[in-house]
């Protein structure tokens, strides 16, 4: 492939990746919200650990999105 075509392909891939990661952040937010709602249905001592895991997951999704914005 010529360098011009390769560059265009990578720009398209970059925006597709950012779009996919944006959707994934929405998914991670929904998981966190759903976990909070389910915690109201069932009160259990282990639930705070799951909430931390869901927060961590959302933070990681945002972190990877920011990383992609910075280095791609």
């Amino acid at each position, binding site marked *: *492939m010529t360098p011009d075509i*390769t560059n265009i*392909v*990578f720009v398209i*891939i970059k925006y597709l*990746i950012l779009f996919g*990661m944006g959707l*994934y952040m929405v*998914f*991670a937010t*929904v*998981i966190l919200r*759903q*976990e909070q*709602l*389910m915690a*109201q*249905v*069932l*009160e*259990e*001592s*282990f639930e705070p*650990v*799951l909430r931390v*895991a*869901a927060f961590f*997951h959302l933070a*990681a*999704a945002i*972190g*990877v999105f920011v*990383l*992609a914005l910075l*280095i*791609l």
Partner: protein
Amino acid sequence: MVVVTTAPDCCTIAAMPTVFTSREPDLERTIMSPLTSFAVSPEGISFETQEKEEKVALFLRQHLIVLLGPALLVILLALAPVLFFPLLFTFLTLPFEIPINYIIVGTAFWYVVTFGFGLMSFLRWFFNIYIVTDKRIVDIDFIHLLYKEFSEARLDKIQDISYKSSGIFSVFFDYGDAYVQTAGGDLPNIEFLAVPKPAKVVEAISELLENQKSSL
């Protein structure tokens, strides 16, 4: 004196329950742990519509074995960037070289998605619960991310209880499906799917029904 012994399925027996009159060891009170899937008169558990004087007699989740598939998949997904992808790229010839920044972002995103899959699988198992109280049977299903179902049947509406355990895994790990049929067409039948010790579940519900009938 309270005797504490370790029991299978990640639970610990502490004392005789107040809801059951049976003296069988399997129907003794259970102390909850995060992986508990069969608990008798558990402490530290309450649910949304629980009444003040209502006591939880039996708390069930699906058998831990249902988490085996997702756990194996998570392990495979975690190993893929280290073991399988380098192997794949030795056979695959691309017309261009993948820049290192794309590899870094791709790998990081892969692990986030793998963690997300593991978390979702665990949440589905954790919040998919069956509760038997001294008044009713409650089935809370967390089918997927945007779908939650709550159904209940009062003990006096229960008509028939049965269970089914089939297959090598079911027999070996002692799990199966318990079915609770309710009287009246508009009330839902409740299914306890892949719960541990289905025979004990049926036995415990029968005992509660008998207790309720004798108290009337």
